[in-house]
């Protein structure tokens, strides 16, 4: 086990130390930190039965994510699973991120673990913005109220394996459905554009509408990019009951 610590130390410029937290559980002290200054928690854990070692977070990463979220949506859960898998690790049913290691694999497994922890913790910044939800709710209510004949669906996932491409509102239509995105910020606006672009590449057939709450929040670069991707853009909440509904009404009849 000390040869693994020595390997890490050699690879990371002598910045690695270790401390025994329990018999068979060695905490790796390394210069990787959370945003509040706490250190990432990574351990070498010995299987008492087989004597083999694994790299483990002992569940500390998801515990820390739970400071922000009491439950994970299916989309965020899938994102965690993807991150873990992409970094060559596995997550147990009890939320422990781990991978078997030996002195030949410990460095890249360790770096994969550190990368996974950083990526998973960035999910906390996706904390749902209640104002955004209200805006989407407003759009949803307007469609329900003024176009009750249309079938609409919130948080629609057009491609099962790509929950990152979730559409705020899908409006069913005979030829192609409308995918509606409500953007309160520049990042939400760009996300809408990227989603539409990705969905097109995946051969999904749809018409896209982005409703921008305040065009002053949109950067000129993103405006130029997204305008060339989406079918229709409506600006301001006032457009909800005018331009937006008119477009949906006319196009769905066409």
């Amino acid at each position, binding site marked *: 086990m000390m040869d693994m610590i020595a390997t890490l130390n050699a690879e990371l410029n002598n910045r690695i130390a270790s401390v025994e*937290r*329990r018999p068979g559980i060695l*905490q790796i002290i390394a210069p990787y930190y959370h945003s*509040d200054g706490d*250190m990432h928690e990574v351990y070498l854990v010995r299987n008492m039965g087989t004597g083999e070692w694994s790299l483990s977070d002992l*569940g*500390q990463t998801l515990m820390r994510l*739970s400071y922000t979220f*009491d439950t994970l949506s299916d989309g965020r859960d899938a994102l965690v699973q993807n991150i873990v898998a992409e970094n060559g690790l596995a997550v147990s049913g009890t939320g422990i991120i781990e991978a078997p290691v030996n002195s030949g694999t410990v460095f890249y497994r360790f770096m994969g673990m550190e990368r996974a922890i950083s990526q998973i913790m960035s999910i906390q910044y996706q904390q749902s*913005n209640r104002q955004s939800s209200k805006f989407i709710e407003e759009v949803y209510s307007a469609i329900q109220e003024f176009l009750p004949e249309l079938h609409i669906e919130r948080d629609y996932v057009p491609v099962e394996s790509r929950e990152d491409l979730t559409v705020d509102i899908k409006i069913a239509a005979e030829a192609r459905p409308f995918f509606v995105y409500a953007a309160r910020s520049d990042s939400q606006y760009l996300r809408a554009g990227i989603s539409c672009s990705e969905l097109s590449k995946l051969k999904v057939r749809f018409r896209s509408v982005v409703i921008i709450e305040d065009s002053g929040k949109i950067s000129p670069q993103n405006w130029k990019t997204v305008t060339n991707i989406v079918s229709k853009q409506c600006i301001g909440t006032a457009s909800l009951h005018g331009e937006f509904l008119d477009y949906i009404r006319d196009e769905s009849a066409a």
Partner: protein
Amino acid sequence: MTKDEYDDHISTRKTVEKLINSKLHAESVSRSFELAGENGCRYRLFLRRNQVLFESFSVGIDWISPEANIPLCRYNGKHGPTARDEHPSRFHRHQPSWKGGERAGKALSNAILDDRFATIEEALTTACEECRINGMEEHFPHLGQGELHFE
């Protein structure tokens, strides 16, 4: 958020209103509560404890603002040694940093050693005293004896 607003959030009396469904993580003890503040604001208190390393725990309080949850403070157990000399590795409290009277960032980046607690039970008691939270006994009848009985 200014320092004065922060102090108001901490010092307002709060009452535990309900248990929040909390199921993110099976490997830690996990409870969350919604609190009602006398100032009309709502708050969230969470308790987390690692099941393998019992000394690794956190009791945190967020303000449920109209836009998002804003972390106010956390009472943390031991993480083990850290690679930064200035960061506490023992029991500590996290609170915001302040820059010119305004909160500097969302993270609770100011970590201070705290000798008032060594267990999650004591951390919860400390949090309830400091943040003036009533009604926790209903959910943890043995808290006064230093026992939470999660299961």
